[in-house]
């Protein structure tokens, strides 16, 4: 009998330990938000958030915190990169699934898998030595919004392609077989049978990648020029929220530091809402 109770105790102890370690991840998210809040509190408390949009300029040492150019910069770069990478990624996945010979698709898939693992800093470096000089030929200085968009596209494109590809793979094969049996043409099947089913999966993947794109820091910092301004054209330099943190954190004091943490908190909230939206979409998809 004592053996049995010991066994039971051991099982209970195990259950407790496991449950506690599962709590670690919850605690760490809590800690992340808490620390960002605490560090940015002086800024939240002392100045109106409207300062971010209506101050004269970004001169943190003089108490001017106009964050608008960085917010616009981040959004423009993200939007540009998504606009380029979504169609290229989806069309490439369509190519792999329906048009290309199998060996070519497999080869390309392996390659893109490797590419999705390459550090973004390598893409950033490559952007500096290859893409920026190329753009500078058209219009100096080369470090610009466009360079940022191109580099960010290269960074998110592999993952978007892989996500689109696996979404197409997960489609119920019965529908496709029935469509073939009905004698529908290839284009009709792709457009009216496969695409509608893949739509939700594609959207979920794209939303998550948008979160990744807006959070990308160093690669964008390396090629964008980092001038605080509202860009007049895609050839002008911009600065993003993330690069602003990376550039100024090293010497930021007091209110300035607090302002940087607050912009981090804002990024965090954007990503949080994107993740929650994609979860909601996934859930709705499961309930259908």
């Amino acid at each position, binding site marked *: 009998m004592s053996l049995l109770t010991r066994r039971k105790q*051991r*099982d209970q102890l*195990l259950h407790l330990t*496991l*449950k506690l*370690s*599962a709590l670690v991840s919850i605690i*760490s*998210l809590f*800690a*992340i938000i808490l*620390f*960002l809040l605490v560090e940015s509190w002086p800024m939240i408390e002392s100045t109106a958030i409207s300062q971010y949009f209506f101050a004269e300029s970004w001169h943190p040492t003089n108490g001017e915190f106009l964050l608008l150019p960085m917010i616009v910069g981040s959004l423009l770069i993200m939007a540009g990169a998504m606009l380029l990478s979504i169609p*290229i990624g989806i*069309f*490439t996945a*369509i*190519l792999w*699934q*329906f*048009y*290309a010979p*199998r060996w070519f*698709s497999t080869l390309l898939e*392996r*390659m*893109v898998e*490797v590419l999705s*693992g390459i*550090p*973004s*800093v*390598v893409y*950033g*470096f490559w952007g500096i030595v*290859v893409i920026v000089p190329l753009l500078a030929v058209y219009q100096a200085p080369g470090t610009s919004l466009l360079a940022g968009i191109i580099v960010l596209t290269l960074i998110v494109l592999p993952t978007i*392609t892989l996500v689109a590809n696996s979404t197409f793979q997960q489609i119920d*094969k019965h529908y*496709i077989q029935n469509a*073939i049996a009905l004698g529908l*043409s*290839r*284009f009709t099947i792709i*457009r009216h049978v496969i695409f509608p089913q893949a739509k939700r999966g594609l959207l979920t993947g794209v939303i998550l990648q948008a*979160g*990744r794109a807006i*959070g990308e*820091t160093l690669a964008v910092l*390396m090629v964008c020029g980092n001038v605080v301004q509202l860009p007049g054209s895609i050839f002008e330099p911009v600065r993003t929220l*993330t690069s602003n943190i990376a550039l100024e*954190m*090293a010497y930021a004091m007091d209110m300035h530091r607090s302002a*940087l*943490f607050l912009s*981090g908190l804002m990024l*965090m909230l954007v*990503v949080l809402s994107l*993740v*929650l939206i994609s*979860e909601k979409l996934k859930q709705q998809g499961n309930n259908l």
Partner: protein
Amino acid sequence: MIHLPSDHSLADRLLKFTSWFCGLLLFTFFIYLFFDIASRGFSHISFEFLTDPPISAGRAGGIAPMLVSTLLLLALCLLISLPIGIASAIYLAEYTNEQQWFARIIQTNLNVIAGVPSIVMGLFGYAFFVVALGLGFSIIAGSLTLACMILPLLIRNIENSLRNIPNEYRINATALGLSKFRTIFQILLPMAARGILLAVILSIGRAMAETAALLYTSGYVTRMPESILDSGRSLSVHIFDLSMNVPGGEQNAYSSAFTLIVMLLIINLITLGLSRTIHKRSV
């Protein structure tokens, strides 16, 4: 891949053309990137490059301290995150199902952590590990930050490999009177061993690519780290610094990028091999 009947309509030809165009665009772009980095990076790689300390801020010399720092960061990061990762994954896979609210909260929570921008994770690491815990710019602070970042990836992959074990094993173990403790440690974990290894390797790849989170946690001193409380510059931070702050550091940046990519390629090959054998075994 399903073979669809061919079609000669204009719409189909247009779609075919567009998708070939996009696919080939991607193909050429990345072939260019590969060969550019390989050809310009490889020429400078030598035994000395891997074993020498950098000279004049990295313009000359090698990358030995960065390699050591990178390896230290990875090892410590795994040491911290693996026990928590395995335990959380066992809890999720063996004690909960997807419908329970607690499990759902943990899953959402993991998805959010996985999405936290790395610079924001770096801010947190700086405020918490570096300043609040007083660890300073150190390898241990960097590892703790990295551990937070890879935990979701680790947990999700290990959880999946546990869920892929057929339920008969659990039922049979219970029927034989095995305790939950023994079922987990003597049956389920050994069966999931390959999956766990795969998860670890994937996480190493992710951690090795990380840069922004390390900038303000493990610092960017180029010295050889003497202990885990020393600041250490990872290879990825080295590439960043060489290309941004060191005029004339381009050649060594190419070589460092090449080294990093080769390391990642090796990881990729191992992953591919492992996932193939897992697939074979489960068939």
